[in-house]
């Protein structure tokens, strides 16, 4: 989440004195021979909206189910507020979960679904109705209290599930692909609603998703997982702008990857030889790279400019011919063939009407970008 400048930046992960709410310490989970979580260490802080992102089977759901108490780690410890939660059964944990299928109880009304957890808590019986009403107001479902789950729409069901899991005011709310069943428009609205509710209640949210846009929208930090390992844990903008590997760069958004050999040109500047007879690509890397190492240069299509005249004063200019144009309404993506048959994508916002477009198929064009626009990646 982008923070307005006049507010203190929310970044507890940068504060060494901050105690994490959840700490995974060298956690491994095996199902028989299959390693679902591989020696994973991770801190999640209070009030965070933490997204676990990865393809199916990467271990993100297992990680969440271990927090809820449905799976136990094979080795390693999970601390919640400094306490090892391994011996605590799910019904005694201060966590609640919103299930992918919502798991609403079909034989109970919306009201009773939300009251279900409260009736099994320490809450005094006469306080329950007020809390249920409060939850119904929070998700704007006051009018549907008496309905059964099958009598309301998918979006409403999703909100009931959210209200039910928030009713007990858990220290930690787990959301397992909460918006997976909603169509795109409703999903976007609900994402903002989720962020709003998270801010209002001050609960720590951990969300599992395979939708990178969703993770980028809602999360304070995103963890990209693959094969039971954390590949990168960072804020959405850093994940996008400075991915630490080709895997992350490729998983989040669209990217051009160009392979080449790196030669050092200055403090953190490198020249990458990528094709015979073509000028080297100039890029930046914060990590030191040995001379002649094989590297991947990653650059986002929207950071590549396209022009029919050779531009002046750009660090990198590459010649090519337009082989394909994808028109998406708000933007157009040009696929440009450059030396060696390689394709580089350039994305341009359609500020003018389509009829005014001066570049078309088979045109000779110049692609250009600055020397800080892309990142040099070792793996």
């Amino acid at each position: 989440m982008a923070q307005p400048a006049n507010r203190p930046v929310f970044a507890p992960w940068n504060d060494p004195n901050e105690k994490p709410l959840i700490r995974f310490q060298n956690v491994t989970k095996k199902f028989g021979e299959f390693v679902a979580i591989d020696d994973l260490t991770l801190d999640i802080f209070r009030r965070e909206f933490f997204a676990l992102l990865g393809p199916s089977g990467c271990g993100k759901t297992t990680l969440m189910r271990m927090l809820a108490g449905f799976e136990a780690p094979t080795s390693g410890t999970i601390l919640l507020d400094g306490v090892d939660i391994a011996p605590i059964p799910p019904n005694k944990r201060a966590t609640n979960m919103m299930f992918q299928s919502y798991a609403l109880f079909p034989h109970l009304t919306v009201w009773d679904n939300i009251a279900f957890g409260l009736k099994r808590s320490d809450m005094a019986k006469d306080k329950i109705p007020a809390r249920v009403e409060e939850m119904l107001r929070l998700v704007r479902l006051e009018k549907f209290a008496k309905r059964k789950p099958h009598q309301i729409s998918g979006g409403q069901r999703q909100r009931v599930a959210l209200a039910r899991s928030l009713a007990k005011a858990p220290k930690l709310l787990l959301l397992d692909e909460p918006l997976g069943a909603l169509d795109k428009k409703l999903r976007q609205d609900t994402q903002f609603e989720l962020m709003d509710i998270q801010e209002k209640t001050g609960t720590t949210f951990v969300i599992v998703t395979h939708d990178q846009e969703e993770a980028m929208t809602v999360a304070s930090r995103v963890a990209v997982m693959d094969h039971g390992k954390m590949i990168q844990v960072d804020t959405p903008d850093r994940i996008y702008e400075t991915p630490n590997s080709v895997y992350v760069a490729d998983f989040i958004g669209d990217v051009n990857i160009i392979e080449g050999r790196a030669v050092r040109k200055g403090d953190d500047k490198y020249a990458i030889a990528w094709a015979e007879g073509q000028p080297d690509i100039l890029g930046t890397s914060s990590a030191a790279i040995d001379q002649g190492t094989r590297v991947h240069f990653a650059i986002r299509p929207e950071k590549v400019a396209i022009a029919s005249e050779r531009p002046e004063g750009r660090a990198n200019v590459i010649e090519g011919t337009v082989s394909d144009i994808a028109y998406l309404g708000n933007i157009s993506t040009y696929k440009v063939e450059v030396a060696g048959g390689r394709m580089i994508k350039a994305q341009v916002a359609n500020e003018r009407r389509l009829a005014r477009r001066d570049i078309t198929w088979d045109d000779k064009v110049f692609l250009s970008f600055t020397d800080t626009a892309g990142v040099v990646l070792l793996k």
Partner: protein
Amino acid sequence: MNRRFSWFNATSLTLGFAFLYLPMIILIIFSFNASKLVTVWAGFSTKWYGELLGNQAFLDAAWVTLKVAVLSSTLATVLGTMAAYVLVRAGRFAGRTLFSGMIYAPLVMPEVITGLAMLLLFISIGLDRGVGTIVLAHTTFTMCYVSVVVSSRLVTFDKSLEEAALDLGCTPFDAFRSVTLPIIAPAVISGWLLAFTLSLDDLVISQFAAGPSSTTLPMKIFSSVRLGVSPEINALSTLMISVVTVGVITASLVSKRSIARQRAEEQAAART
């Protein structure tokens, strides 16, 4: 679907149903026969039903049968539901196939064998044979039917509902009682009704498990028939047929309604 009328279809349908129901229809018709002779029709009468009500031996047997059926089907429902729950829920464990096979084996086991085995067990542990032993024997052979009915419902049961209940603070038993059981109730009820009707008309196993003071209705009918079929027996059998029919129809209606409701819910979910 081919809805056209054809002589072949009509003939097979008639033959099939005649084969199934002709004996019963004849029995029912002759239960309203005025004559004492079973095979000669002498006009409509309900006097055999009246006489049946005055026959203390039959009424006693009916009472024993009813008691046995209610008790054994209730026990079988509890045990069968538990067995189904464990088999469906426990996931893969060593010997799972063996266990499920062992639960379903009594379905195909000859009743004579089951009955004989029960008899030997009762004798060896010195249990006096009577209503109690019949209840035990009936529970044994009906619980596998309950288990089949309930587990077929549990297979389609969304496990995350139970996890949600645990997550919201239920103990595993509380989760079963307040979430799982209400949802699978239709299957449990139809399992009970099935066990009830099976117990009601069982003869072979009852023969082995019964004592001198505990004659069930099917046993009574069987022993009376050996002295000749009386119209009274026809009347009694007609009554039993109606009880069983009502039981089976109720069981299938209960499960059909729950399936229809489930489907409606799924469709509603798909629409949204």
